[in-house]
């Protein structure tokens, strides 16, 4: 078994926290759909969890992108899928700020009265829905970037790579 590097840990922690953020977003959406005095505290907790997870994913992904991505980028650009960087990564790295802003905003909405105010409930559900949707797109983009590096290695001519 090969050694697990700090780069590996950060690389896999980034989408893991993203998935936790998606799950928390779904949690907020479902609870807000059935908002009542009984689940107001849970909605607030779920929205805080969503903000914390998405922020953690941003910090971890950003650290890896700034410090380690340059090597993978060089490999992708020399491989058969250069668009995995030029289109997918370039879009993903900027798209990420959208769910980040929405996740920071979500607790400010859910601290309001979701039971008596329909616009507040609709806003909480809309923001949670957009966080989930954009994060799913970003998770898919991450998989494509990873595949871009993988196909580049497969076509690198390394012994055994083609089989």
């Amino acid at each position: 078994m090969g050694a697990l590097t700090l780069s590996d840990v950060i690389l896999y922690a980034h989408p893991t926290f993203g998935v936790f953020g998606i799950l928390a977003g779904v949690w907020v959406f479902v609870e807000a759909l059935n908002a009542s005095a009984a689940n107001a505290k849970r909605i607030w907790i779920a929205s805080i969890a969503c903000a914390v997870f998405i922020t953690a994913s941003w910090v971890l992904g950003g650290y890896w992108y700034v410090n380690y991505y340059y090597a993978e980028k060089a490999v992708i650009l020399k491989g058969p899928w250069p668009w995995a960087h030029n289109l997918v990564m370039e879009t993903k790295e900027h798209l990420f700020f959208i769910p980040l802003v929405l996740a920071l905003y979500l607790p400010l909405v859910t601290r309001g009265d979701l039971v008596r105010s329909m616009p507040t409930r609709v806003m909480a559900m809309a923001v949670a829905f957009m966080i989930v949707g954009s994060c799913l797109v970003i998770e898919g983009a991450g998989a494509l970037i990873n595949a871009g590096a993988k196909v580049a290695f497969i076509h690198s001519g390394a012994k055994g790579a083609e089989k």
Partner: protein
Amino acid sequence: MTNTEIGRAAGMAARTKEDEVGLDHTATAYGIAAAIAVLFNTLLAWVKDAYDPLNNAMAKTLGHHWTTHGVAVVLVFLIVGFVLSRSSADWIKSPYGVVYMLCAAVVMAGLGLAGWFLLV
């Protein structure tokens, strides 16, 4: 009036009351700020991608253009939200106006980013 009609009328009255209670002032202010921040994010991505001196300046500011970009977007959200929340002005009258504004901003910003890197 049948029982069904009475129930429906009561439900509609309750729904109208729920609609009358809008987003609170802070949520409205930061909702507008979120819409501005996501559009600013896309605009900044376009400009720095097209204008290298800005990209280089952002890279020098915090060590990497992406780090500066992210901090700038979050600061726009926090500062604009704080300023609007301190203002006593009633920015948007419609109860669902901020919801529509934020949804439209997110869709435009997302498509704007994907479209830019697809075409450029």
